[in-house]
């Protein structure tokens, strides 16, 4: 057990083969974090940055790394003005713990509530105190999440939080946001994205920067650090996290999370391979676009590749033929149907993809179709109209 860097006694084994000592390991983690920010040349001096904390392992380490960076007094000092935000789902214990965690570093933290999603006029909050929750909005959000499939819940939660991060960043005058996703969680997000039809949004959802908002960019400075490294860093620095970020069980996301964990055991390169793949996937670029249409939920661009036929049309067609009785069909008809049949389905409001390419992207439209509660429909429709 010899550290491969300095030759001292090794204490940590990464990827089942690489041995490091505590000191070299910690230096390496800090280096990965700073390198990720540095090489992308995104920070200007003393910029306001909104740091989003969930209380999970990633955010606990992010908090520590930021603190270490700004207390330095040499040329390596991290020159940012951090502001901290936690978006709560109403768990008071967790809020108190996060306030406590930030206090250890003498940081103040803003606490917001997920129900703020429906608040049109957000106000700047007091730091280190419980948020005031609007009862009406709270009911709306509860209704929205009632009886929806858990995969949709997980996905919508991510989108709602993202939207709130941006709203608060605007309010607090930050143009940058840091979130704490690790290589491991990004690999899971990548596979989840693909599995719910968000393949074209990968660069923004998994890459270093989410560029969808014109003003405010979301940065993932821990994208090169793995779960295994997080665990070791926390042990060395004696950090404790407040909660474990778990996806709702029995969902697309939880299945993928378990799968990646299992595969990682036998094929240790899986996570990094998956993330390297993500780095090569970009956005569809069409210069001929007149005006940018964006999905109102996830802000993704609604312009798409020109395809003769895609899974979207194939699914819509399946719905159509599943509503029609077998009929002798005109031989020269292109799709084997009478043209008026399409109109029939549209008039029945049975489309598999409501609002698609008008206000919603493929995946958000799919989510919407699965949240069939009338109250929810109303809430989203308010959003669609505003």
């Amino acid at each position, binding site marked *: 057990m010899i550290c491969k860097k300095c030759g001292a006694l090794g204490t940590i084994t990464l990827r089942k083969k690489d041995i490091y000592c505590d000191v070299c390991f910690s230096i390496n983690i800090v280096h990965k974090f700073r390198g990720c920010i540095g090489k992308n040349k995104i920070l200007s001096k003393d910029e306001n940055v909104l740091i989003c904390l969930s209380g999970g392992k990633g955010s606990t380490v992010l908090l520590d790394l930021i603190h270490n960076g700004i207390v330095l007094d040499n040329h390596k000092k991290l020159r940012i003005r951090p502001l901290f935000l936690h978006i709560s789902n109403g768990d008071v214990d967790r809020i108190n713990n996060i306030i406590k965690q930030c206090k250890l570093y003498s940081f103040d933290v803003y606490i917001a509530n997920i129900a703020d999603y429906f608040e049109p006029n957000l106000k700047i909050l007091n730091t280190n105190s419980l948020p005031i929750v609007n009862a009406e909005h709270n009911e709306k959000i509860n209704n929205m999440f009632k009886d929806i*499939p858990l*995969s949709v819940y997980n996905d919508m939660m991510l989108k709602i939080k993202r939207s709130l991060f941006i709203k608060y960043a605007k309010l607090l005058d930050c143009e940058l946001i840091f979130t704490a996703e690790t290589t491991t969680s990004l690999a899971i997000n*990548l*596979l989840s*994205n*693909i*599995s*719910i*039809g*968000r*393949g*074209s949004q990968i*660069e923004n959802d998994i890459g270093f920067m989410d560029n969808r908002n014109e003003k405010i960019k979301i940065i993932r400075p821990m994208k090169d650090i793995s779960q295994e490294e997080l665990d070791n860093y926390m042990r060395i620095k004696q950090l404790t996290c407040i909660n474990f970020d778990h996806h709702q069980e*029995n*969902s*697309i996301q939880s*299945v*993928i999370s378990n*799968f990646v964990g299992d*595969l990682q055991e036998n094929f240790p390169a899986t996570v990094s*391979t*998956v993330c*390297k*793949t993500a780095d*090569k*996937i*970009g*956005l*569809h*670029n069409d210069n001929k676009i007149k005006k940018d249409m964006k999905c109102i939920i996830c802000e993704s661009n609604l312009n*798409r*590749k020109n*395809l*003769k*036929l*895609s*899974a979207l*049309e*194939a*699914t819509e*067609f*399946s*719905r159509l*033929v*599943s*509503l*029609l*009785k*077998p*009929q002798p*069909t005109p*031989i020269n008809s*292109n*799709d*084997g*149907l009478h043209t008026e049949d399409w109109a029939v389905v549209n008039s029945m409001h049975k489309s*598999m993809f409501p609002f698609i390419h008008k206000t919603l992207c*493929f*995946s958000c439209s*799919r989510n919407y179709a699965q949240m069939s509660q009338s109250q929810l429909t109303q809430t989203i429709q308010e959003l669609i109209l505003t």
Partner: protein
Amino acid sequence: MPVPCGTGCGKNAALKRPKTGDALCKECFFWAFETEIHFTITKGELFKRGDSVAVAASGGKDSTVLAHTLKTLNERYDYGLNLMLLSIDEGITGYRDDSLETVKQNRDDYEMPLKILSYKDLYGWTMDEIVAQIGRKNNCTFCGVFRRQALDRGAALLGVKCIATGHNADDIAETVLMNVLRGDIARLKRCTAITTGSEGTIPRVKPLKYTYEKEIVMYAHYKKLVYFSTECVFAPNAYRGHARALLKDLEKIRPTCIMDIIYSGETMSIKEEVTLPSQRICTRCKFVSSQEVCKACVLLEGLNKGLPKLGIGKSSKAKKMLEEYNARQNTLEQVIDDLNDTNIKKKSGKKRNGLTDKCNSKTCCSGNCNSTQNNMEDNSKINSLLDEYSLKETDKPVQQLNDVSDDEEGCSSSCGRLGGLGVGF
């Protein structure tokens, strides 16, 4: 309580469609199933009127349903296609021998001509023999690579415009996941295309691209189609199994995810700065390849040299393997060299038989096959080079090797070596 059919035809539903969640009776399901495939064919512009189309037939459910539906639709919508069946006999006892009987049954049922090509005739090896060499791991690599080329050869023999394969929606979703897990960006880009094939090659089309495996099984079952349902005896150890297991778990939670994954693959863009290997023609066998020498040639070379792992894994390993092998051969050859100059010529001639055999054999072309002729030409070219260089100037070809081994893959280096040491094909 029985659920009524969603079309309002008055009958009770027989199944719930995984793609849309609609419940349908048998009759309405048949119509929807077939009309969807028709939609895919016309919207995807898969065929042209008057085309000859080879249906790649394994005797399994997908290809049986494909052959049946194509025949039905060809008559119903008057595509004007000339359909035929093309089968590859990999030589897997207890699997392919039985399934080929099913294909022959299909031939009689659907009145289509059938052509069978075998690995034994094409490559000199059956899969049984290959597995005896390589073991239970990695054998799907051989089978897949060889089959791809075998289908091309078969299609060229039949003179068809395109090959229709039975890949279904599940297969494609699985491939997308697998390519992400393996980081294979080039395949990720092309695996969701409904028509594949570059210029000068025979395109392949996938009419069942948007058809769920489950519905194919139901269709075959209700229509009482004869198909062969045993899984390949060698398949369970393949890496693909991981992607398959994941997809099955995802499908249980949300059946639409198969279409969603395909949609992701279709709408995904690869960054412009990413360099992808370009497809070209193998310098040895003249079939499509992404390297100078195609994978099939490398794998075959490995088998013939007794280095079955040659084409598997990293190219650096292949290089090392070849170096060791050549070092052995070198010493041997020097000894032989001293004794008898002509010995080497004899040796290379003998080795070549494995390949030239195929053209004289009963299943292949009886001499008019383009591909094999190219092959022989290539062989003779290399042989003349050998005659010129190998005995006198052993150094020169080795020098050549160093040039090519900078190439990204090990196959090219194997090629250089071969020329140099005169071990031949």
